[in-house]
């Protein structure tokens, strides 16, 4: 039993990601002498803070069995609203508040169409992706709005502790919060249950529609927040901000071991995969690899990370067949299925 528990742990998705992470870091160290520069380490997070934030909530959404393609557009809309209001003489705080409200509103809209109209989230948020971006364009047209107060931009640019800007710590806080909520809260339990079997969850007296709407609203909220971070980091906003972010975000979540069909995946896994992707990309840009190639490397990693455990598992089954005579060798207790997307996707 002990031994099988250990084995299960070793085979877990998180372990796999951790190994990959170590490999990536090792390679980066070999390739670039600058990798360990404090500034670079800060950049790894700082340069993709918006994506990182959106990854957190996207994990919830996908575990719940839905998907949100509109985050990047909501993010742009949030940043736009903030900038436009500030330009119109509001205080940053007020502008931010409105931006977050708008984010919530967009999320609510998505949620209502998904939960109450029963339209697949892929479609709803696809329309949202186009529509919300459109709203941002309506607000700013071709203008770029900026010159925020120094204190605001410094939030996104200057180091808070060492070279790490405060947004990095915001992310850290939200990550821990997300981990706790998903793993230990009632809400998290509901998210999993609905993602696994919505009918059963509803028969158990859970209001799935409510949960889904809440999730989409949170998704919108975080996206808008990410928009604010974007504004602070770049000190200036355009309607075309963050186009095409959503696919990156989803990729990271899936690599984190979250099943696209919902129900499985952990925050830890998502966090690890975020680290893997960020370090991988950073390492590649340090060796001047172009963006397309970077993305395709991440893509291959995504496929292999599912393919290899699949094969391992089959190999193991095959062996256990061959050695059926002495079952002790292969006694795995309850750990026959590793806690990876693999087991669910069959």
């Amino acid at each position, binding site marked *: 039993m002990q031994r099988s528990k250990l084995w299960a742990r070793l085979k877990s998705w998180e372990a796999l990601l951790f190994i990959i992470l170590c490999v990536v870091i090792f390679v980066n160290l070999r390739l670039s002498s600058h990798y360990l520069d404090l500034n670079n380490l800060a950049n790894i997070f700082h340069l993709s803070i918006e994506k990182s934030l959106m990854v957190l909530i996207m994990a919830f959404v996908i575990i719940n069995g839905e998907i949100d*393609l509109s985050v990047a557009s909501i993010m742009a809309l949030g940043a736009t609203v903030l900038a436009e209001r500030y330009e119109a003489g509001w205080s940053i705080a007020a502008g931010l508040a409105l931006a977050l409200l708008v984010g919530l509103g967009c999320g609510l809209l998505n949620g209502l*169409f998904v939960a109450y*109209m*029963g*339209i*697949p989230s*892929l*479609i*709803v948020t*696809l*329309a*949202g*992706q*186009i*529509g*919300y*971006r*459109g*709203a941002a*364009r*309506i607000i700013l*047209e*071709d203008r770029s709005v900026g010159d925020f107060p120094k204190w605001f931009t410094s939030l996104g640019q200057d180091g808070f502790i060492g070279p790490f800007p405060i947004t990095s710590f915001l992310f850290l806080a939200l990550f821990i919060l997300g981990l706790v909520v998903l793993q230990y809260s009632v809400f998290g339990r509901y998210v999993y249950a609905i993602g696994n079997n919505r009918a059963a969850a509803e028969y158990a007296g859970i209001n799935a529609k409510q949960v889904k709407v809440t999730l989409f609203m949170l998704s919108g909220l975080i996206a808008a927040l990410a928009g604010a971070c974007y504004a602070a980091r770049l000190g200036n906003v355009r*309607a075309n901000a963050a186009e*095409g972010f959503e*696919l990156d975000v*989803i*990729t990271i979540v*899936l690599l984190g071991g979250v*099943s*696209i*069909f919902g129900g499985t995946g952990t925050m830890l896994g998502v966090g690890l995969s975020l680290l893997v992707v960020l370090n991988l990309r950073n390492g590649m840009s340090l060796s001047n690899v*172009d963006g*397309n*190639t970077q*993305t*395709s*490397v*991440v*893509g*291959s990693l*995504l*496929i292999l990370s*599912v*393919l290899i455990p*699949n094969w391992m598992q089959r190999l193991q089954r095959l062996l256990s067949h061959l050695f059926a005579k002495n079952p002790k060798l292969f006694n795995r207790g309850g750990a026959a299925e590793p806690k990876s*997307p*693999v087991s669910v*996707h*069959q």
Partner: protein
Amino acid sequence: MRRVRRLVPLQRLRELSLVLILIIVIVIFGNQIDNYYTPRTFNRISSTVALITLVAVGQTLVLLTRNVDLSVGSMVGFTAYYLGRHLSKTEDMSPMVLAAMAMGIGGAMGLINGLLVAYGRIPAIVVTLGTMAIYRGALVRYSDSKSVATRELPPWIKDLPQETLYKFGEYELRALPGIALGAVIIFFFILLYSSFGRRLYAIGSSPEAAHLAGIHAPRMVTLAFTLCGALSGLGGMVYLARFGTITVEAGRGLELQVVAAAVVGGVSITGGSGTVLGAMLGAILIGTLEQSLIRMQINEFWKDAVMGLCIIVAVSVDRILINQLTPWWSRTELQRMPEEPHAEV
């Protein structure tokens, strides 16, 4: 009523409802835009929709099996570029050979997707999210991020778009829409009358039942992906013919348009239901919206918003129509034949 229901299955009903929506849209824009009801408008929309339709047909095959192919855009781009390069090197080449080549390349990439999904047991969205990036990366490497210029191409491919297959008055059926329409018709019948088609529906409808019914799902799924790739390859040829200039960005973002078209066309992303006819109607609906919005000369910055709104409205209307109709349209109770009751047990 019963008779009607017997004659018109639910699928046709869906398509009819789409046609209805389409007509409404056209009438609305017709009132907004002067000289809208012209052959020109028709020819415009038909040629714009050709590419999306062609790829949407392939996407439909995949969607039917409860999968999705996000790599179509990259496959179109890669094929378009490859063909362009090839044509710029070789002097003369018959269209048929080129088409075959296009489908070959696309098919190969589709095959890879299919194998990974069906035999590698990886969810399609993961696989194709990956290959979308990989094929694009391959294109960048292969092309060394140079682009194909129109001047390098032989005239016949450049003239393909204005080839007219059939003329009814001013209304022309151009070559590219012709190709798309051909694909739609062929696959409409394949899906309706071939056992291959029916088995695609079966797999998407209930995988475990399909397994027990002795349907070899992996083979079917692989085939669906391969066909989708082949059609995307053909799409690549259409793209080349249409735009001449091919950069490494060719076809980026196409995947979402295509999925949107298919789904607006009533193809279920959870598999098992939908037709290529619907997908085509979906593509036409979106194409009409885009073209009409261009014609409307509404403020540039409003277009996206309006577009998003239109899609969600279209889908919602369709959804409501269907939800209202389905229950009494295809509902059947188990009816016992007259027989003496057996009370004793």
